[in-house]
């Protein structure tokens, strides 16, 4: 199937998944073009350029040997944790909530974003090092819990409920995959059910608590915080099966939909492309996630298995949390739809995930893909 016309490394790339990802991002660019009122600026063009840069980066990452990832996991985690603490301290100094470090050259690094990835690698690394016999002991649980709990706590302090949730979910997924007893998860879920109302009342900031209360009853505050959810549902609901047509969305074009190009990008798309566009997009994401889990199934090392499946699930959490929020099934927590929403952070994280997945795929493949 492969010919000498295409160089070997290029031919070895998993083209199917690259095209799928490019398609999702391309769809996102169309949406951004429309959201800007039929213009490449200010969003579509920079987003497209970023995609090319990050995709190139992902392909480069796919050449990184698995051992580099294995040995780099814990140091990377440690560095990011320090940066999170640094952000928190800087935030206190500058007086206000801050989520990024300014690295100069106009590049602002958001350590919490990369932590979503690093937590998976770190917990996977921890379970690889853990002797298999101890999987079902307490010693298999508490270090992982600490690994997860520390960054989650600092992110909560920022405060960024969505990211904290994703860090917890990513870490917990790896624990689950690593074979930690099911009853812990069932117990944990029950515990959460009890603790959630308490947390809502005592731990969250006022604006976060409001978001949750308003999610439960959006019509109670149609012009305040509930406005986001209400308008998003109007955009999706008014789109119907086939949508209002490209560039014909009124909710986004007349600014009724807040954050129509970022967190609520899906609603902008759904208004113009309807149920059909929405289902296709969900299906495309599910295919990417299924491929990622398959990569994990095929991987040989425990680290590679846990990392691959964990990262896939991280992408899934992005999608699931964002779509639930946009459709009024979850409170507004500020998680963008990766590859689709405008914004470099999530795009970078997810393409980095893909790079790592491709690296694992390449090194555990028995036969060339195409």
């Amino acid at each position, binding site marked *: 199937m492969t010919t000498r016309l295409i160089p070997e490394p290029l031919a070895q790339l998993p083209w199917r998944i690259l095209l799928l990802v490019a398609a999702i991002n391309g769809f996102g660019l169309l949406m951004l073009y429309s959201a800007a009122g039929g213009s490449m600026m200010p969003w579509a063009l920079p987003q497209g350029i970023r995609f090319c840069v990050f995709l190139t980066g992902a392909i480069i990452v796919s050449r990184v040997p698995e051992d580099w990832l294995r040995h780099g996991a814990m140091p990377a985690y440690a560095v990011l944790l320090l940066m999170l603490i640094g952000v928190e301290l800087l935030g206190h100094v500058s007086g206000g909530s801050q989520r990024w470090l300014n690295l100069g050259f106009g590049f602002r690094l958001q350590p919490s974003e990369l932590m979503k990835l690093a937590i998976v690698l770190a917990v996977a690394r921890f379970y690889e090092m853990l002797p298999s016999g101890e999987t079902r002991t307490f010693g298999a649980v508490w270090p992982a819990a600490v690994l997860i709990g520390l960054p989650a706590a600092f992110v909560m302090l920022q405060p960024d409920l969505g990211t904290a949730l994703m860090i917890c979910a990513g870490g917990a997924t790896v624990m689950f995959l690593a074979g930690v007893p099911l009853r812990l998860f069932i117990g944990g879920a029950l515990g959460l059910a009890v603790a959630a109302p308490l947390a809502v009342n005592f731990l969250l900031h006022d604006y976060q608590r409001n978001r949750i209360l308003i999610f439960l009853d959006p019509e109670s505050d149609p012009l305040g915080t509930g406005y986001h959810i209400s308008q998003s549902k109007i955009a999706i609901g008014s789109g119907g099966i086939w949508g209002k047509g490209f560039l014909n969305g009124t909710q986004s074009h007349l600014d009724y939909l807040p954050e129509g190009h970022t967190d609520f990008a899906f609603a902008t798309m759904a208004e113009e492309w309807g149920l059909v566009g929405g289902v296709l997009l969900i299906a495309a994401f599910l295919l990417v996630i299924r491929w990622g889990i398959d990569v994990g*199934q095929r991987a040989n090392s*425990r680290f590679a*298995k846990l990392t691959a499946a964990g990262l896939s699930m991280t992408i899934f959490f992005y999608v699931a949390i964002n779509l639930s929020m946009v459709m009024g099934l979850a409170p507004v927590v500020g998680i963008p739809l990766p590859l689709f929403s405008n914004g470099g952070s999530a795009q970078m994280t997810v393409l980095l995930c893909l790079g790592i997945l491709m690296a694992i795929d390449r090194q555990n493949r028995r036969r060339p893909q195409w």
Partner: protein
Amino acid sequence: MKRQPKIVTPAMQSYSFSRRAWLLGAGTVGVGTLLGARMAWLSVAQNERYSLLAESNRVNATLIPPRRGWIVDRHGAPIASNRTDFRVDIIPDRLADKDRVLKLLGEILRLPAEELERVRVDLDRAAGFQPVQVAENLDWERFAAVSVRLPELPGVQPTRGFARHYPAGAAVAHLTGYVGAPTAEQFKATRDPLLVTPGFKLGKDGLEKTLEQRLRGQAGAKRVEVTARGKLVAELATRPDVPGRTARLTIDAGLQEYAARRLGTNSGSAVVIDCRTGELLCMVSMPAYDPNSFSDGISHWEWQMLSDDDHVPLMNKVTQGLYPPGSTVKPMNTLALMAAGVSPTDRVQCSGALRVGTGVFHCHKRGGHGPVDMKTAVAQSCDIYFYEMIRRMGYDRIAPVARELGLGQKFELPFSTQRFGTVPDSAWKARKYKDRWTVADGLNASIGQGYVLANPLQLAVMAARIASGRALQPSILADRVHRDAPDLPFQPEQLDHVRESMWAVVNGGGTGAAARLLVPGMSIAAKTGTAQVRRITMAERRGGVLKNGQLPFKLRDHALFVCFAPYENPRYAAGIVLEHNGHTVRNLDTPMIGRDIMTWLLDRDRAIASLAEVEPTWGGDIATRMAAEAAVYRAAHAPAPAAAATKTDATVPSDAPAVEQATAAANQTQAALAEAPPADTPAGQGTTERTP
């Protein structure tokens, strides 16, 4: 039994991973399906609802208040019209810096400090959506000055609209009522967005209220596509408003205004009816409020001034005022006596007093009239004649005729509140007081006192029916005139005799000589009346009855008058009631007022000249007098700033408790007043009917 921890091997781990990873994969598909289903629910099942919401987001429809239908008189002259109105409002929600904006507005519009204070108070009470009026009736220069500086004035809204205009002012106040902004309750009841549209006003009282549906019209809408921030994107099709229909009245606007002016400083009412059709030609209740300023919303102190006035300007005396008709019922009595078989030539000896049982009934003429026949009894208004005749015949034979002529009757007229008085008889008393009808009751009723109560409209109808011999129904809407009124069940000679005796009242040396018509070849037929509002004690009678001029206003007698003209061929009939007039000033008494109103219809120039002669002695025309009174009141009661706020939700005059109380109290005293001992019975208030 304690469970041993399982020993886990790498192979088992790998197997467990596969299983759990598959589980998660399945989970993602499940969640994906759930999200797809949720999306389908929103976009398919609830598509209609959300499409509607998206559309109402996109399109901002600003209602254009419909132009209100005119109210015109029988000749098409406007009684209530619309004039272009330049106004400036503030939308409280959009107001950013209240103090700065108000200061600037005050400078541009040259508003007095007091007005600014009123706006400030209104703003503090305002409910977000409802615009607060800053100024209306602005001239073009000031209006343009605000429009130009709009960028500096967030929340300020200059509008060009229509305002209701009543050219005759107070003269038509109780006829038309007035318009005003809808109340919060009205909006809550209907949820009609038109009701909260700036500049929209609906009828609050009188015809404006009862003809609301006909006059309102349909709102237009200016539809624009707007962004969430309110920026205009595109103008969509504008739907023009449908103006309300014109309501044509039977009223003659000229007569209405003339009569209002001719009543002078009286607290009274005048009704004129066309004797051929029953059309109401005028319906005046004075003094009144100015419906123009009422429609703009009046201030608390103005309201207080009107409420405090003992001439009750807030009450429509034509339909709400109930008075003992006094001697004006005497022509009706003679008709009833003739129908009962009394011969017009039968005489009664009047000695000035008549003893019945333990009580003594007096004639208004202390020395008595001597021998009196029917015609003289009417002309001289002899009480003894009627005491004696009705003592013989019994009042139960009079009451049906009274009703036949309109007393105690309710007429189908578009007024929300009509009080229609009482025509008592033995059955009525048994029903109302569970008591036997006494001779004294009948005697009191025979001179229009005691339980008898009527409103001015009924008196005019009575005169019109006597004049025409037909059961005329009064009408006020030109398209609802009852033209085919049946004849009354009396002999023409009997009616002729009644008319003749009324002619004698004015022209035959009777009590109404002052009403003699100066129009050549025509004469007026009338009956005067006086209704006491106090008891004259035996002691007072011995020392000489006090003159009205010596009494405080509230204790003076009411003056009443019914007439028709020309006597030769009756065209017009009128009823006039002057509260507490007391017959003190000749040119303000009923006969001359009745004469001038009739003269206006028959010889207009003469009537106008007559008014021009006397009006200056009363302190000028209506508007001048009202302004002077307001100035005096204002000087005496300097309004506190808080009380200066616009009273847009003021109680409608005819519903106002103060008016209700005044009316009820007056009616009670009148009902309780009679010279005979049994008159100590509780007051018969008359029946009040309120149609919605």
